[in-house]
């Protein structure tokens, strides 16, 4: 699938930077990162731990202020939004899902209460019926039975189910961009795929734009249209999945690709036939 570049991308960052600390102790977590994401696109951000990919996620979610650079949503500069009155409309459109679902919820709340929280982001006060409708449709969308989970506590669900609740929570306000920061790294391999498939379905059914942050190249290749590679705070390479996989430019990407363990041996040589088949997809 090719995505035609539209005049204004959904999300754009220009020279986005974040430095922690000062002077010689300064840590440049994100350095001059510029990229854009088109509506309906799934873009993966890959890199090892400490490469700045989670800081980038927190910057885009506006949970952390950048030290330099801009973030644009639909062409509007959202970098300087600081008041919660201004941020609410932003969070209506941009929502996040994080690595550890058990750390992301209050253990003493019921799942209903967890899911009701984002309704406060709406520009109107929803009626009882609208609240229930939104919550139930979000749950159905992630493949959970509302009557089964709503009155339970988070600890009564498995990790995979709870991560679905977290995705439903993000959907309740009806966002356009979903920022998924390592959403599967706490899950077992067989469940991991079901969550990835859910993200693919969200794109198919409601044209959701997804920024998928991962350290796992395999997942990035399965899910995304384009890949951004981060290394020590720098965005060192970006391109379509095919470009980055078959012809990595940066030395770090090349090493990463060579070192990833594969079922069929390290750095299994890609045969021309399978590449061709993938190109025709």
């Amino acid at each position, binding site marked *: 699938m090719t995505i035609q570049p539209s005049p204004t991308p959904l999300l754009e960052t220009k020279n986005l930077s974040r430095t922690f600390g000062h002077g010689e102790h300064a840590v440049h977590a994100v350095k001059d990162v510029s990229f854009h994401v088109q509506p309906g696109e799934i873009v993966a951000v890959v890199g090892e731990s400490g490469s700045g990919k989670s800081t980038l996620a927190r910057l885009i979610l506006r949970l952390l202020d950048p030290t330099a650079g801009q973030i644009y949503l639909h062409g509007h500069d959202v970098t300087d939004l600081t008041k919660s009155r201004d941020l609410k409309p932003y969070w209506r459109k941009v929502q996040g899902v994080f690595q550890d679902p058990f750390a992301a919820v209050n253990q003493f709340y019921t799942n209903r209460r967890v899911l009701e929280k984002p309704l406060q982001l709406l520009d109107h006060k929803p009626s009882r019926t609208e609240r229930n409708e939104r919550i139930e449709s979000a749950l159905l969308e992630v493949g959970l039975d509302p009557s089964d989970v709503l009155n339970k506590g988070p600890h009564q669900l498995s990790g995979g189910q709870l991560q679905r609740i977290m995705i439903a929570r993000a959907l309740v306000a009806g966002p356009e961009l979903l920022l998924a920061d390592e959403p599967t790294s706490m899950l077992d391999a067989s469940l991991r795929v079901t969550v990835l498939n859910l993200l693919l379905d969200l794109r198919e059914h409601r044209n959701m734009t997804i920024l998928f942050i991962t350290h796992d190249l395999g997942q990035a290749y399965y899910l995304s249209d384009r890949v951004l590679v981060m290394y020590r705070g720098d965005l060192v390479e970006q391109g379509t999945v095919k470009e980055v996989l078959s012809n990595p430019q940066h030395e770090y990407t090349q090493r990463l690709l060579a070192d990833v363990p*594969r079922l069929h041996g390290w750095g299994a040589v890609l045969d021309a036939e399978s590449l061709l088949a993938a190109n025709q997809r």
Partner: protein
Amino acid sequence: MILKNVHAHYETDHGPAVRAVDGVSLTVADGEVLGIVGESGCGKSTLASVISLTARPPLHVTAGEMELDGETIALTSQTRIPQDWHGRKVSLLPQRAMNSLNPTARVSDFVVDVMRAHDPTILPKEAIDQALERLEQLSLPSRVLQSYPHQLSGGMRQRVVAIVSTLLNPSTLIADEPTSALDVSSQKELVLLLQALLERSFIKRIIYITHDLPMLSNIADRIAVMYAGEIVEIDSTKGMIDSPRHPYAQTLIGSTLDPDPRVRERRIKGITGAPPDLRKPPSGCRFHPRCPYVMDICSQESPPLVGSETNFCACWWVQKESDATTFAKVQA
């Protein structure tokens, strides 16, 4: 090394015990790397503590024996494990082993501590010399001995612990998720180090426990798949990767995402449901509530072992399929 019929459970305050390992038998040949793969909660780390003789309450070993280099010991909690087995016969390289280094002591002090714990008569200089020699043989820099842990990278720390835990040349090394906290490049270096230890006969065999199937396929000679405390299939690495038989093994291997154009061509199916509660495991085959090929008999009787002792699969459906193939061949 032969492991027979190991049963181990965790005692709970209330209600039934958690039967984390239930009737596991294994054979590991000399020079072999046996991989054990399974998802969280399948009992693989419990099995690691049992084999490495580090089981402590609330974990109780109720049955099982281990034969190692001609000697046999019972693994049950009541038996005393001979003191010289720890570190000499079996050694454990646990998950996040790198955190076992003392942050305020140099690596060389750690080496001395470890060696003297096993042999109080050894002189500090001898211990360090031994470690130096081992580092040289494995072409790692000798400066690590003079370093504090924080001066070394995570990958290097993990390798240092791997070397120190094999200084006594244990015949079996049990590696429990040794690479899970490392980035891919450090993972590869650790695996290459383990292979070098084996090649130079510092250790005779490795039991490598992980949830990371692609990693395992790069080091193991044979792979055992564990589910809910039992081994459901065991086969050569190639056999397992290319043609898994057990439905669970099939799903596990099928849901592996290699960074490869082929993974984009099709939609990969995961597996529904969650692993069972081991306080009251499902009747019959423990996988039957999640199995796509479930039959009536699966919930009633424990599945039969299809194949030989070193290459088997425990499944009713596999038995039916293999009977059908045999029947078809006879007919032809």
